[in-house]
């Protein structure tokens, strides 16, 4: 460390330093750079559009998502049903809108708990404290990472779901809370649990690496030597410097978890009817066989394509955004 103190006078007063709002300039920098990338900008707009639709699903939807109209089944798009109706005469547009909401709820829950919360906390702990904390988290992560993602989803759906469902009924019977199981909360918990292992380890390893790289940086050493406590060092000095790679990984993760939800629901082990989900819709019209899927594609393409286009856009846009953010935030990674 530089202990001569000759350069101290060149530094601004501490009070001046505090006035610099680092987060503001960081966000502004990212935004200026992002605006230069047209494709990424379009991706942001599409995502904002989809997410607004999903969040305001009750307002945007034109029908009730489980309302059937047997007088008008398998109809093509018209003024009343914008994307037509399905086998039971349910409005496809409405079901897509609610399906988007389902996906949003699940991705946000999973990514917040797994990547942002667990990834940050464990990653910083492992990287900064090292020793036993590092060994335990890394080894646990390795064990979980070796279990193939989708098989884990299958096994959790088969064995843990009934347990959580039992717990849901128990809560309904013994507390004033009602409708735990009918609200689809169980599905979110089950899928969240299933996706947790595959989301937290990547984020954690990333954060750990970053933390390891800066834990002995001069400014962290300086803070330590001034007697700053570990929690403060982690929050004030480490956190702001490790967060950028996390933003990139969150962007990629959103697309991956969205696809995971759709695939699980397609197989009938994810979100359960009557709650609409894009995966359930796709599973319904294809009946999970090739002949039915081809038949639908031929006779009623809108029934298959409506949910698929949304899934496609979501995955594509999150990846484009992730790429752009990676270029902007980690220039060295290019």
């Amino acid at each position: 460390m530089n202990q001569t103190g000759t350069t101290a006078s060149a530094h601004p007063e501490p009070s001046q330093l505090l006035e610099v709002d680092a987060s503001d300039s960081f966000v502004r920098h990212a935004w200026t750079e992002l605006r230069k990338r047209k494709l990424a900008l379009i991706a942001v707009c599409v995502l904002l559009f989809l997410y607004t639709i999903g969040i305001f699903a009750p307002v945007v939807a034109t029908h009730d998502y489980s309302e059937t109209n047997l007088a008008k089944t398998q109809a093509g798009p018209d003024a009343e049903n914008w994307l037509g109706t399905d086998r039971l005469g349910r409005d496809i547009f409405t079901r897509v809108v609610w399906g988007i909401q389902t996906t949003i709820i699940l991705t946000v829950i999973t990514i917040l708990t797994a990547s942002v919360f667990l990834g940050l906390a464990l990653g910083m702990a492992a990287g900064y404290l090292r020793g036993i904390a590092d060994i335990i988290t890394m080894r646990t992560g390795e064990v979980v990472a070796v279990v193939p993602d989708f098989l884990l989803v299958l096994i959790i759906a088969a064995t843990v779901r009934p347990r959580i469902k039992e717990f849901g009924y128990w809560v309904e019977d013994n507390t004033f809370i009602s409708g735990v199981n009918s609200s689809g909360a169980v599905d979110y918990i089950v899928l969240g649990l299933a996706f947790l292992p595959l989301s937290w380890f990547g984020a954690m390893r990333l954060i750990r690496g970053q933390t390891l790289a800066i834990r002995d940086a001069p400014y962290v050493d300086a803070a330590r030597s001034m007697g700053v406590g570990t929690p403060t060092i982690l929050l004030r000095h480490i956190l702001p410097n490790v967060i950028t790679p996390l933003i990139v990984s969150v962007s990629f993760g959103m697309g991956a978890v969205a696809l995971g939800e759709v695939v699980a629901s397609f197989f009938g082990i994810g979100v359960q009817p009557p709650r609409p989900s894009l995966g359930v819709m796709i599973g319904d019209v294809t009946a999970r066989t090739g002949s039915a899927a081809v038949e639908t594609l031929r006779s009623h393409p809108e029934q298959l394509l409506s949910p698929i286009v949304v899934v496609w856009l979501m995955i594509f846009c999150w990846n484009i955004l992730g790429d752009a953010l990676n270029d902007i935030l980690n220039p060295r990674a290019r």
Partner: protein
Amino acid sequence: MLIYISRRLLWTPVLLFVAGLFIFSLGSVAPGDPAELMAGQRADPEAIARIRDRLGLDDPFLVQYTRYAANALKGDFGESYRYRGRDVIELLGPKLLVSLELNIVSYVVTLLIGLPLGFWAAMRQGTWKDPAMTTFMLLVYALPVFFTAPFLILVFALWLDWIPVSGWSGMFSTHAILPAFTIGVPGAFVFMRYMRASTLDVLGQEYVRTAHGKGMGHMTVNRRHIARNALLPIVTILGFSLAGLFGGSLIVELIYGIPGVSRLALEAVFQRDYPVLTTLTLLGATMLAIANLVADIMYSLIDPRIRLRA
């Protein structure tokens, strides 16, 4: 070097033992008594007690797991709950082989498309072709197989009538073409991206400039100096990328009517045939662990820096 390899070799069994414990305990969280499931709806308590005794269900959990692990090493993964008297491995074996074949062909397609494309794109960095190709491949990558599979059937099997619609008769038959492309082409994007980044790294190296400077032909430099070195780091991700293949192949198996593990696994979820699920997951984890081990060892043989760091 030897220390690094032997450490990896020793760690892998431990890793698998713990992963197995995790999977086994997930399997035993399930509600319902395995003995009752196996005995069927109207079995008398005595028959259930007999099964309990035979399976050792009254032993402590860790004893049960150790016995399970010991049997698994001998290739015995227990009996199916649903198909009475049939070993899980006997049920899974033939189907697993088909799934494995499908994944291997798809992987070959992925590599054959992804690696050359990545190299191609890197050599055109700075022109419009590089970002255009990357974006196009990302579009393909994001396209869900729910669409591509029926679409390809419609075009190539029904309209053009080139290839059989569905079914399976080995990885070298025409049946394998559509499924392999359905899984393989989207996956190529991932390899294209890695290959592009790794080629760009090599392009900046001095030995490339030297090779050009001493008047070597472009083709020779591309092949000997750039492509060969750019392929090195790809070795490490070969193992990991296997993990992602399984999810996609399950859907594709269903849609193309391929007799792989897909249908059996789904049935097992709904019929609560937990041994089938735990076995499948355990075998998947084993394959992944071995693939990672091989990748690690290969990389340490290729790149001395890895050895020194360990």
